[in-house]
C-alpha cells in the first residue's frame, strides 16, 4: 500500500517535501485504521512525526489532512481511502514538524469563547436541577474533542484565525448559551458582536462535512445568530 506523506523538519529541511512510503500488503489486516498504518510506517522510519494517543477517536490528537479531507487517523478505515494515500498536516496552521501543527491560535479562540458555566448565584448544597429536555439541548455540543478538524477546514478561519473564532470555539459558545445553568447570555452575545468573531461564518459548512464526531457547528452558529437577531429587536 502506497502513501505520500508531508515531511518537514525545520532542524534539517530547507523546505517541506512529500515523501513516498510503502507498507507491505502482508502487514495489512482487515479493519485496519490509518493510525495503525502510520504506526507501522513510523517503526520503519522513526523520524516521521505525528501526535496520537487514545486510538479510538476520543482524545482528538491525530487530526490530519487525509486525501484532501480533514479527519482523525485512528478512526479512518484504510480501505475507505483512495491510493496512494496522501497525508498532510491540518491546513492553515503553522507546521512545527511533519504532521504536527501549532494549534495555539485554535486554543486561544477556544479560550476566548469563555467555555465554562457562568452563574453568579450561590451554589446549592446539592446539584442544580436540569430537566432531561434541558439537558438534551447540550447533546451534539458537549461531545467536541477539540481535534481542530473543523476550524482548519474553514476558509473564514484560514483568512482570519486571529479575529474569527472559528467553528470549534463557536460550537462551545453555543454549548454554554444553550445550558440552562448558564446566566451570561448577554455577556456572551456582546462578546460575539462585530463583523468578525461570529459573523465571518459564511455557512460554507466544511466544518459539518469533516467533523469526525458528527457534530454540526454551522447549526450552532445559526442558533447564536438567531439569538443575536432576537436580542436586537
Amino acid at each position, binding site marked *: 500500500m502506497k502513501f505520500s506523506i508531508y515531511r518537514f523538519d525545520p532542524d534539517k529541511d530547507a523546505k517541506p517535501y512529500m515523501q513516498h512510503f510503502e507498507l507491505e500488503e502482508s502487514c495489512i489486516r482487515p479493519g485496519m485504521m490509518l493510525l495503525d498504518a502510520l504506526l507501522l510506517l*513510523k517503526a520503519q522510519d*522513526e*523520524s516521521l512525526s505525528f501526535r496520537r*494517543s*487514545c486510538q*479510538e477517536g*476520543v482524545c482528538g490528537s491525530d487530526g490530519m489532512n487525509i486525501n484532501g479531507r480533514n479527519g482523525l487517523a485512528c478512526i479512518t478505515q484504510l480501505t475507505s481511502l483512495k491510493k496512494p494515500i496522501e497525508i498532510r498536516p491540518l491546513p492553515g496552521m503553522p507546521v512545527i514538524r511533519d504532521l504536527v501543527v501549532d494549534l495555539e491560535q485554535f486554543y486561544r479562540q477556544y479560550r476566548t469563547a469563555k467555555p*465554562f*458555566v457562568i452563574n453568579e448565584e450561590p451554589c446549592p448544597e*446539592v446539584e442544580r436541577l436540569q430537566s432531561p429536555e434541558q439537558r438534551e439541548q447540550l447533546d451534539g455540543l458537549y461531545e467536541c474533542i477539540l481535534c481542530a478538524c473543523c476550524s482548519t477546514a474553514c476558509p473564514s478561519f484560514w483568512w482570519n484565525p486571529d479575529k474569527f473564532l472559528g467553528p470549534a470555539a463557536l460550537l462551545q459558545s453555543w454549548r454554554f448559551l444553550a445550558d440552562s445553568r448558564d446566566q451570561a447570555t448577554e455577556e456572551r452575545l456582546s462578546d460575539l458582536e462585530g463583523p468578525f468573531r461570529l459573523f465571518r461564518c459564511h455557512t460554507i459548512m466544511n466544518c459539518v462535512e469533516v467533523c469526525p464526531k458528527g457534530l454540526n457547528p454551522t447549526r450552532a452558529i445559526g442558533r447564536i445568530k438567531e439569538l443575536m437577531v432576537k436580542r436586537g429587536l
Partner: protein
Amino acid sequence: MEKRSFDTLIIGAGGGGLRAALQLSQAEARVAVVSKVFPTRSHTVAAQGGVNAALANVLPDNWHWHMFDTVKGSDYLGDQDAIEYMCRAAPRAVYELEHFGVPFSRLETGKIYQRAFGGQSRDFGGEQAVRTCAAADRTGHAILHSLYQQNIHARTHFFDEYFAMELVQNQDGYFLGAVAMNIADGEPILIEAKTTILATGGVGQLFRTNTNALVNTGDGMAMALRAGIPLQDMEFFQFHPTGIAGKGMLITEGARGEGGYLLNGDGERFMERYAPNAKDLASRDVVSRAIATEVREGRGVGPNRDHVLLKLDHLGADIVKKRLPGIRDMVMTFLHTDPADTPIPVYPTAHYTMGGIPTDRHGQVVVPVQQGAEEPVPGLYAVGECACVSVHGANRLGGNSLLDILVFGRAAANHVIEQLKEQRYHQPIPGDAADVALERLARWNRQGKGESIAALRAQLTKAMEDHCGVFRNEDVLQEGQQAVLALRERLQDAYIDDHSQVFNTARIEAMELENLVDTALATVSSALARRESRGAHSRIDYPERDDQQWLKHSLFSLEDLKMDYKPVRMKPLTVDSFPPKKRTY
C-alpha cells in the same frame, strides 16, 4: 538551562492533576501543570461509565454501603481509613462537578442520572445499588473538559507538551520540582517548586492488548522509582472484562449496568454459575476470570473459540442510543455492527493499575523509614492512577477511579495549601540537580546502531501479556521476570537515529520505554513474590487468599529489586472495621 519557579508543580493534566490544579489556583497559589499532551488529550477523556457517589437519586443509598462494597471489592487489601474518606467525600465531589458545568445525564426529577455498576450493593451486600453518576457513556470526557475549562477560568499556568524527565531532590531527600523538556524544541527546563504533585496516570501500555491510550507509560511511577521511592501493590493489575476482542477498545461496564449480559459459545448466560446473585455485575476480577475460564475450557465463541459475547440487543435501540451512544459509535466504527442489533465480541483486556506510588489519604507520598512504615516524603505528593492510597486494594470497582482522582486531587491540593502557609520560601536547588535528566537526554543523542525502540517495546508488552496476565504461576512469572530483565539490559544498547531537536517523538518514545521497563519489572516482581490469590492477582499454584501471610501491601524498590511489605490499614476513621470475609457475589 531555563529555570522557572512556582509554589506547586503538577505533573500530568488528567482529572487528578486538573482537580488539584483548580483547587490550588482558586486558593491563589502559583501552580504550574506540566503535561506531555494537551490537557484534554489525557486518558481521563476515555472514561465512559461514570463516577460513584451515594447520592440516592434513584434508590436509597449511603456512603457506608459504598464503603463496604469498596472494601469487599478490594478483597480486603484497601486501606479502610482512605476508603471511608473517599466514600464520604464522594457526593460533594460530584455536586462540585455539577457546579463546574459537567453535563450529567438527568433523571425526570432533574437530578443527576445514576446507573447500576459492578460490585455495588445496598445494605452491606444486599440488592444491587444504583450509584454511578453518568454523562451518557462519555463521563470522563465530560469531566476532563469541564475541569480544564474551570482551570482556564482560574488562570492556571500550563506547560502543554512538556515531557517530565526526572524529579529533583536535595541531599535531605526533600523534593524540589522536576526537569522537563519542551517537546516542541527539545529544550530542557528546570521547574522549581515547594511541592510537587505526580498525577501521571497508569501504565496500561505494559500489556500488548489494553484499553489504554498510547501515552499511558507510567512516567510518574518510574520517576518515583528512580528517585528511590518504592511502588506499592504493583502485582494488582485490572483486566477489564469487556474489551473488544483482539482489539482492546473498552466497552463500559455501564453496558451491563443498563441490562446487557454475557453469553458463551453455548449461548449460556454463564455468569449465573460464577456469581449467582450479582451475575454480570459481579466485581471485575470475578467477571474477567469467568470469561477467561470459559474460553480456556472450550466454551468460547468464534472460529477460534477465543472470546465471549456481550448482548445488548434486547435493551432496544432507544436505550442503546440514549444511554450508550459513545460505545455504539465505537462498535460501529471498529466492528461495523450496531450493538443495538448484534452482540459485541469481548475478552478481558488490561485496563487499570491498582498499584502505584504509596500515599496517605492526603496524597502525601509515604515510605518506610526505620521503624515507621509510612513516613511522608517531604515535598512530594501523588494522586490518581499513578498513586496507591490505597482505596482499590487488589481490585478496583468500576466508577471508583473517577472518584479517586476527584477526591484525592482535591485532598492533596488542600494539604498542599496548608503546607504552603508554613513554607514561604523555596529551598536552594543543588547545583547538580539537573544532571541525571540531562544525562538521560544526552544518552538518546548518542550516534550508533543497535536495538530498535519499537521492537523492544513490542517484545516487552508481549512478555508481560504472556507471563503476567489474568492467570499466573511461579514458573511463568519467573520466566517473565527474566524476560523483562533481559529487555532492560538490551535497552542499554538501543539507539535512535532521529536527533532532531524539533518535536522529536522518537526520543519521547525511547524515554517512555525506559519508564515502561522499570514499571514492568515492579509488576512482574511483585506478582512473583505474592504467593496467594487475591483480587486481580490469580495464582493457579496458590488459588486461595491467605490472610494469615498476605494481608499486607507489597513495596518494590528498584535497588536490588527488593520486596518489602507493610500492614493494611484496617481501621477506618470513624466507623467499625470490615474484617476480611470470604468474598462471593
